[in-house]
């Protein structure tokens, strides 16, 4: 699978926008990993923050030898550092939740297709229920029920996203299940779990996997939106979304930098994920190979 993606990435002709967004995405991931090394300040450590330097405009030189390149927020946190650390939270939350949602959704979809009967009905009823409401509403209800916290946000995003995977996986698995090799597997009396996990799942996985990058983009936006509404991450560990939200009340007073820069970072992140994701999806789509 990985080789397939890599070769697909290599095979494509690159437009300048696509190249730029791949570079951007790669650098996002790099700086997120290296954040503690390159961030001037640890915005989670109160000893490194100077409250008296709150709301400093970009370029201010602060005490402790800091140069606030993009200014500080209403509590004195360096915006650059907040972005770097927030990026980590946003990325971890969205990647983990999308991966788990894909895993759960795929298993559910394939199981529905394989077992049929009431399993199918039960799972697909649930999927239909969820897909008949907007994702943001599902995520909203989930986070209200679960309460705040990073782990809860991940859970809420899984709940909001698994159904999409389940529906696609079931469709593919249904057509797969009727193929001769499946009959062979059944005739060989392989155990059910082996049939599902070793044969049906790998063969149904491709169309669902192409969804993951796009869904990661969705997850970043969803997490940011929930955090913006005050239902997300803890106040002293801002994600990109809650960093933007913290700045919202200052926006009206002209202290634009508190929300503008984290917002730009967030936008760049989602846009690059989406552009790269579209590309991955198109190159893995068999119908596209002839083009």
């Amino acid at each position, binding site marked *: 699978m990985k080789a397939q993606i890599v070769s697909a990435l290599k095979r494509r002709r690159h437009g300048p926008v696509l190249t730029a967004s791949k570079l951007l995405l790669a650098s996002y991931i790099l700086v997120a990993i290296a954040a503690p090394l390159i961030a001037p300040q640890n915005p989670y450590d109160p000893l490194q923050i100077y409250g008296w330097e709150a709301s400093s405009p970009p370029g201010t030189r602060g005490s402790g030898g800091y140069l606030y390149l993009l200014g500080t927020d209403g509590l004195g946190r360096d915006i650059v550092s907040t972005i770097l650390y927030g990026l980590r939270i946003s990325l971890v939350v969205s990647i983990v939740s999308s991966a788990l949602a894909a895993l759960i959704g795929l298993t559910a979809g394939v199981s529905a297709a394989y077992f049929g009967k009431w399993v199918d009905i039960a799972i697909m009823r649930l999927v239909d229920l969820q897909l008949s*409401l907007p994702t943001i509403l599902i995520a909203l209800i989930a986070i209200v029920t679960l309460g705040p916290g990073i782990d809860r946000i991940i859970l809420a995003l899984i709940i909001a996203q698994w159904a999409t995977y389940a529906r696609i996986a079931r469709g593919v698995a249904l057509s797969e299940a009727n193929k001769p090799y499946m009959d062979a597997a059944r005739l060989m009396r392989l155990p059910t779990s082996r049939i599902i996990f070793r044969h049906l799942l790998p063969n149904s996985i491709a169309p669902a996997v192409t969804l993951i990058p796009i869904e990661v983009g969705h997850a970043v936006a969803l997490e940011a939106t929930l955090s913006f509404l005050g239902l997300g991450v803890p106040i002293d560990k801002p994600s990109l979304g809650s960093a933007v939200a913290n700045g919202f009340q200052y926006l009206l007073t002209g202290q634009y930098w508190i929300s503008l820069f984290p917002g730009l970072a967030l936008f760049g992140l989602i846009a690059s994920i989406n*552009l790269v994701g579209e590309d991955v999806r198109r190159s893995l789509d068999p119908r596209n190979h002839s083009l």
Partner: protein
Amino acid sequence: MPLISVVLGRLSQAFLLLIAMSLIGFIGVHSVGNPVFNVVNIETATPEDIHAATIALGLDQPIWRQYLAFIGNVVSGNFGTSYIYHLPAFELVMSKLPATLELASIAMLIAAPLGTGLGLLAGRRSGTLFDRTMVKASVSALSIPSFWLAMMLILVGAILTGWFPSGGRGLTASFLGQEWSFLTGNGLWHMVLPALALAIPNIALIARLSRSGTIEVENLDFTRFCRAKGLSSRRILLRHTLPNISVPIVTIIGLQFGGMLAFAVVVETIFSWPGVGKLLIDSIQLLDRPVVMATLTFIAVAFVALNALVDLFYAVLDPRVRLSS
């Protein structure tokens, strides 16, 4: 006969949805905290006051009994009384509806023609610089989280230029017994930024759809025939291509209108637009359970009903589509 079974299937599905949602929502709000602290003045209330208020709201009952009482009331058309406003919850939701409805309508009035037009143009000239720019722009526009788009509109349209107000509904005028903003100049002026915030992602979505439709239709025989007949490209586009791509576009408009009700939660919160979405968020913060339940139910019913309408429309307009359960 098949139509009836489809309708029945839809209805039972919607019913199931409502039951599941009400159960989760009810338990969710209950588990978050005790709304009684928003009802009494905590700074002056004695423990007895708090106890009395808990009993008065029926919150001393076990949760399952509260839920059964709630369902019983809903069956008789009563969502209960708002803990905060002392008004019937459903009435409260309905009183906020005009604000949301007019905002979503104006947003769609902007998005539908603009999106279709851009899509037609891009599809007609597919592969050109304009087309490629349009595609990338639409991906970007769909990438912007709605809350950040709204904030940027405030930054540019209100703070830097001072052209538009940064929030609120402005003046309203009475029509059909409801208050509407679009009837006053001041109200319309307040509506520009939030409507744009709702419209921009939809412009991108509709443009993408109409672009791919246009490309498909442009390659069909009848379009080539029209062109061979010497019809002007403008006439072909408007009289032949547009009607052919209208079905999916109308579909997405219907679906997105429902989506706007949900996304209004974000946009209305940022623009302090006193609609259904803002009511939902405020009520969640205040743990005003009757209002939360009434709002959730309303949004779900509206969304499901719109989906059903769109499907019906699809079946009527496009005979190739057959309804399937």
